[in-house]
């Protein structure tokens, strides 16, 4: 065997087949992305036919107030829902991992529901819920509750709590519970134990959960389009609307910008974690 270490290296035909498979999978992943990016620089209005290089579509995008408004809405919703969902999801994960209480199992099972329920179902039930609440609010206080950024944010919080809780729980489950006992043994009170030992230990999980929440919020089309009102369109919903009116390279330019932004986000979080050193 020519392999290093203790891993068994596949040989001959098996090795070549595995390599081919890897190339196919990566091609399947990245070829569409490359096509998308390339065509965003296409001079032709018809997306599929290459005519020459231009930055016009990016200029158009930057000048398009509808796009910019949608970007702004997306960022507000994503930031707000990520913060709220991360705090609540982390709290839920802590209570499920660290405490025994009545109804813990039921709570545990119910927490996974938003992950399992199809987006459309979730969207319909949230819409009905908001309409009912709006009616009730109007009857009780006369206040008008309209669909808009607030309802979108609340909806994103609703499904993101589950994802954050799952990620944070996985981290907590792998943490040695005697660390907290050791902190208590070394004169730390409950709050000090949490701040100095538990929180730093689960930070990678919390960051991972927050990143997931942010991505899911920026991505969501189905739920958002149900609970959004006039003037509160997020970027993915806007792009979806554009596509229905015919695909232009403007869409490619917008998508490429989104791609670059989300890659920058992931890169930043990786760098952040690396600087903190291995946990």
């Amino acid at each position, binding site marked *: 065997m020519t392999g290093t270490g203790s891993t068994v290296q596949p040989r001959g035909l098996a090795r070549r087949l595995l390599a081919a498979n890897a190339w196919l999978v990566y091609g399947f992943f990245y070829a569409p992305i490359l096509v998308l990016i390339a065509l965003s620089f296409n001079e032709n209005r018809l997306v599929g036919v290459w005519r020459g290089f231009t930055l016009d579509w990016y200029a158009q995008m930057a000048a398009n107030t509808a796009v910019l408004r949608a970007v702004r809405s997306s960022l507000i919703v994503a930031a707000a829902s990520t913060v709220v969902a991360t705090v609540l999801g982390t709290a839920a994960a802590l209570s499920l991992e660290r405490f025994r209480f009545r109804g813990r199992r039921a709570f545990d099972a119910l927490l996974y529901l938003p992950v399992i329920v199809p987006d459309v179902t979730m969207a319909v039930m949230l819409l009905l819920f908001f309409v009912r609440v709006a009616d009730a609010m109007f009857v009780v206080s006369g206040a008008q509750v309209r669909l808009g950024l607030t309802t979108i944010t609340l909806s994103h919080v609703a499904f993101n709590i589950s994802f954050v809780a799952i990620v944070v729980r996985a981290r907590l489950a792998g943490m040695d519970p*005697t*660390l907290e006992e*050791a*902190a*208590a043994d*070394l*004169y*730390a009170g409950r709050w000090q134990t949490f701040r*100095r030992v538990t929180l730093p230990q689960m930070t990678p999980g919390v960051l991972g959960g927050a990143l997931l929440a942010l991505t899911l919020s920026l991505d969501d089309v189905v739920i958002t389009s149900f609970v959004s009102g006039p003037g509160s369109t997020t970027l993915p919903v806007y792009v979806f609307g554009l596509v229905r009116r015919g695909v232009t390279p403007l869409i490619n330019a917008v998508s490429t910008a989104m791609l670059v932004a989300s890659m920058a986000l992931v890169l930043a979080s990786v760098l952040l974690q690396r600087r903190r050193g*291995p946990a």
Partner: protein
Amino acid sequence: MAVCVSSTCDRDWNDQPALRKQIRPAMSATAVDLSDVSKRFDDVNAVDHVDLAIRDGEFFSLLGPSGCGKTTTLRMIAGLEFPTEGRISIFGDEMGLRPPNMRPVNTVFQSYALFPHMTVSDNVAFGLQMRRLDRREIRRRVGDALELVQLTGRERRRPNQLSGGQQQRVALARALVNEPKVLLLDEPLGALDLKLRQAMQLELKDLQTRVGITFVYVTHDQEEALTMSDRIGVMDAGRLLQVGVPEEIYERPTSPMVAEFIGDTNLLPATVKADGQIELVGGQIVGADITASPGAEIMVTLRPERLHIVDADGSFPDGHNAIDGTVARRVYLGNAVTYGILAGNVTLRVRVRNAPGQRQFDVGRRVQVHWAGDAAVLVERG
């Protein structure tokens, strides 16, 4: 790692007044007092009515098989568990439901429980920081503690960059730096390999003598307990069976469990006859150094190294007891040979030193096993 034996160690020691052994009156005060302490988990009696007084400055070991309640007892002293019944006092102070951070004890955990996101010196400083000591005082004491466990120069390392033995010593420094009144150790050497463990045993004992802090040490390793302890408490199934100095525990066990758990032994069921003689179940009459009331059902414990073998027609000293038997098994151990001698319906294990001129025996040979009268110890049948 060097076991501290030279005079340089003493000089190092004198440079550390904060940790220097206090001159104290003869060991008399009680450091930890357990009074009728029980702990139930659901239906299991993890600790069952334990009474125990651990003296100030002693190295006390709680010894027993896994699940015997020794770790639970230690955790109750630390405040990580609370007794279902009974009281625990530390230097006369009743602990009640006082949480661990309010108790004058520190613990060295079995898994070390070092904080992985902190450096070695941050780990050691943690307890002092929580007690809000002056920054310079903390730095000085952390330095002293790391010097004490010979880890100077490793301050900025993370726990995962250290070997098991080094992690163990960080855990020790992290506890000792707080100058606890009692140090609790939960099988701290369990994860180390044999050579390192033996070196650490001597080092720990040496350290304890120097700092003069009461050590409560939990272990399932009887050799470890015998090596280090001033006194040993043997536990089984939640009950404290016997407390005594190592010699007492080994030479005069009061129950079959203790006899069997500490070292190797032959346990033979017997009865006390009307004339005070002791009759083994096989019908053999033997002598022993303790008398028991007639009719009592007892056990006789015979340590393999106290038994001797001679030929079937050989002679042995007056006053020795003897049983006829056949060599059924012979195991060569290098420094000794152990025999299984079939005598009636029991097999006696006999350990014979492998010394020049020492006669050895082949399997199948008819022999006599003999022992001095005081080699056999009676214990109550458990």
